[in-house]
């Protein structure tokens, strides 16, 4: 499995990163590309920007751990995760997950798994900037539930 994990301030090129995972290979039959985008509103009100704080060192290590786990659980041929930090405007990309496999089931499942874990275990924190001030975004119970699914599926599969 060829993996690329990057943290950066600058925007990324999702199409180029996606193409890189299948280029020159005859064994890749499925590439799944997920892009997380900054919405123009949060909790029903428009926002000016999102600022992402992160824990340098741990963020990369956590993402690497989860990509390695994805590679253990599914027959992946490649995986790319790029996560931006810093100030991000509405409509801009925040995060990219690309997974490549011979067949689609692994690519789809691994991409969803990686996103569910990025939402709950990767040390990033979002701040919403509006005209009248700045607030920290609160973690969602639905994100924790989504990540927990992957643990339950493990237990169910083992039974």
């Amino acid at each position, binding site marked *: 499995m060829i993996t690329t994990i990057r943290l950066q301030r600058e925007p990324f090129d999702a199409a180029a990163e996606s193409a890189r995972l299948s280029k020159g290979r005859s064994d890749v039959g499925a590439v799944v590309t997920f892009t*997380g985008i900054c919405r123009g509103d949060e909790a029903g009100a428009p926002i000016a920007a999102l600022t992402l704080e992160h824990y340098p060192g*741990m963020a990369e290590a956590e993402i690497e751990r989860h990509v390695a786990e994805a590679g253990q659980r599914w027959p992946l041929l490649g995986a790319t995760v790029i996560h931006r930090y810093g100030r991000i405007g509405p409509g801009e990309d925040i*995060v990219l997950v690309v997974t490549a496999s011979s067949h689609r089931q692994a690519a789809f499942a691994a991409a969803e798994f990686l996103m569910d874990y990025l*939402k*709950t*275990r990767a040390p990033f924190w979002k701040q919403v900037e509006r005209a009248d001030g700045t607030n920290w*975004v609160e*973690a969602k119970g639905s994100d924790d539930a989504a990540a927990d699914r992957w643990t339950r599926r493990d237990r169910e599969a083992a039974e």
Partner: protein
Amino acid sequence: MKLRYFAWVRERVGKPEEDLDVPADVKTIAELMGWLAGRGEEYAYAFDNPKVIRAAVDRTHVKPETTIAGAREIAFFPPMTGG
């Protein structure tokens, strides 16, 4: 021992990191949060509700009952909102 704080924990404590001599009788992450809360108003405010604070030891997520002996870096932060 190096302590690091992120997001609103960092804002409440008033600094992103510090080096502290943690007493030997403070054995776990939960006990460390309690000890930190006693260091001043800003710490008490940051660790007011320890149940919502998450911790990492040497850049790995840990539970409150984890012992801190031998840790080089301990970080405290709110639930994460990445992705």
